[in-house]
Each structure stands twice: as structure tokens, then as C-alpha cells.
């Protein structure tokens, strides 16, 4: 790591590119969400909304799988966005760590809950 003379302007700047991963992940999940919203929105346009038509929409396994993928995308998307908010406005390390930890645990909780919601239909 510490090569002799690799200081100042000769310093090797690499990083692990975690930021690129988060950036791309947020964009890809946003596309997934737009598609899911359009899918639900368009199927709602055809016909009146009743419990039977609504529940029937989420009855097939493929719709449950797609919806779970969309909701997991939502939680990852939210994680990147909310983490950015904490990083921008919360400077004390302990407070940031606390808020980020709560956010992660909270989103994992939401993901588990989503499984139950979808598979109870």
C-alpha cells in the first residue's frame, strides 16, 4: 500500500468505487419501480376497483415475485437516498451511525413485512 514516494500529487487515488455501485443501484431500482407502478396503474385503468379485482391482481405467483422485487428495489432505493440525507446534514459520527443503523434495520423490517403482505393474499 504505502509505496515510497507516493505522497502528495503522486498519491495513488483509487477507492473501492462503492459510490458508483450505490449510484447505479439507485438508478436501476428506480427504473424497476417505474415499470411496476405503470404495470399496476395500467391494470387499474381497465375496469372498476373492487376487493376482488385488486386481490386477484396479486394472486398469481409471478405478480407476487414481481411485486416483492419492486418493493425490495424500493427499500434499496430509499436506503441510498436516506443515507445521502444523513451524510449531508448530520455531521457527528455517532449520530450518523445511529441514524444509518436505524434506517437499515427499519428497511429490513419493512422488507420482511412486505413478504407477509404479499403472500397472505
Amino acid at each position, binding site marked *: 500500500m504505502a509505496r515510497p514516494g507516493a505522497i502528495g500529487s503522486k498519491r495513488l487515488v483509487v477507492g473501492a468505487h462503492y459510490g458508483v455501485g450505490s449510484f447505479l443501484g439507485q438508478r436501476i431500482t428506480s427504473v424497476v419501480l417505474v415499470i411496476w407502478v405503470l404495470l399496476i396503474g395500467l391494470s387499474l385503468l381497465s375496469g372498476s376497483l373492487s*376487493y376482488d379485482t385488486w386481490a386477484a391482481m396479486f394472486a398469481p405467483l409471478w405478480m407476487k415475485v414481481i411485486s416483492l422485487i419492486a418493493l425490495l428495489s424500493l427499500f434499496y432505493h*430509499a436506503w441510498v437516498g*436516506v443515507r445521502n440525507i444523513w451524510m449531508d446534514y448530520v455531521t457527528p459520527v455517532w449520530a450518523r451511525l445511529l441514524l444509518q443503523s436505524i434506517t437499515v434495520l427499519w428497511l429490513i423490517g*419493512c422488507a420482511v413485512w412486505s413478504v407477509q*403482505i404479499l403472500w397472505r393474499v
Partner: protein
Amino acid sequence: MSTFTATKRPRRLYRNLNFPLLLTYRLPLAGVVSIMHRVSGAVLFLALPFLLWLFDLSLISEVSFERLRGLASNFLIKLVLLLLIWSFLHHLIAGIRYLMLDLHIGLGLKSSRTSAIVVYAVSVPLTLLAALRLFGAI
């Protein structure tokens, strides 16, 4: 050979915005879209448990579906729903704008200004439509 003497003019100092300055700072519309994208995202994040609960009620049974209908007829809940619908529409449409910008579409000053206007020209009427539907006018 001439010598140049540096004229020491006091340069304007740009610092972070503070709160009183925030109130008078003239933010361009694209800047408004940007901050509202963040605000709407934060609102939707905070509302996640409420939204998942509504989604759950809508799917459990016919009884819970009717309970959701009853809830949604409450005036205050309607206002909350309208705020969430507006947040969602703003976040969705501004998000599509950001996806385009990430693909280097409409990066120019003029086109990005226009697209910022489009975000409001689309999201505000759709929100108004949702409000009319929600409060029973249509």
C-alpha cells in the same frame, strides 16, 4: 518588458448558505425541483409504515378493504393521502427527469430549465386531478 502589478481587489467571498440567506436566496426552478425531490423522497420514506399498512389492509380481506374505504373517507386522512400522492408524483416525474439527465439528455441550460418547468406542469395538474377524485368532485 513591462511589469504587472497585481491589483488587490477584494474578492467576493462565497460561504455556505445560512438560514436567513436561505429565505431570500433566489433558487432557480431546477434547484426547487432538486430540493423537492429530496423532501418528497424523505416524506415517502417516513410514510413507509403507513403506506405498507394501507397496502396490507387493501389485500387481507374484503372486510379490511372496506375498513380502508372507511379510513379514506376521513377528511384528515384524505389530506395526508393527498400530500403522499403529491410527493409520489413529484418524486416520480422529477426522477424520470434525473434519469434523462444521467443519460446526458437535456443537459443544456435551456433544456434543463424547460424540463424543470415540465416537472411542475405535469405533477401539479395530476395532483389536482387526484385531489378532485379524492374529495369526490369527479
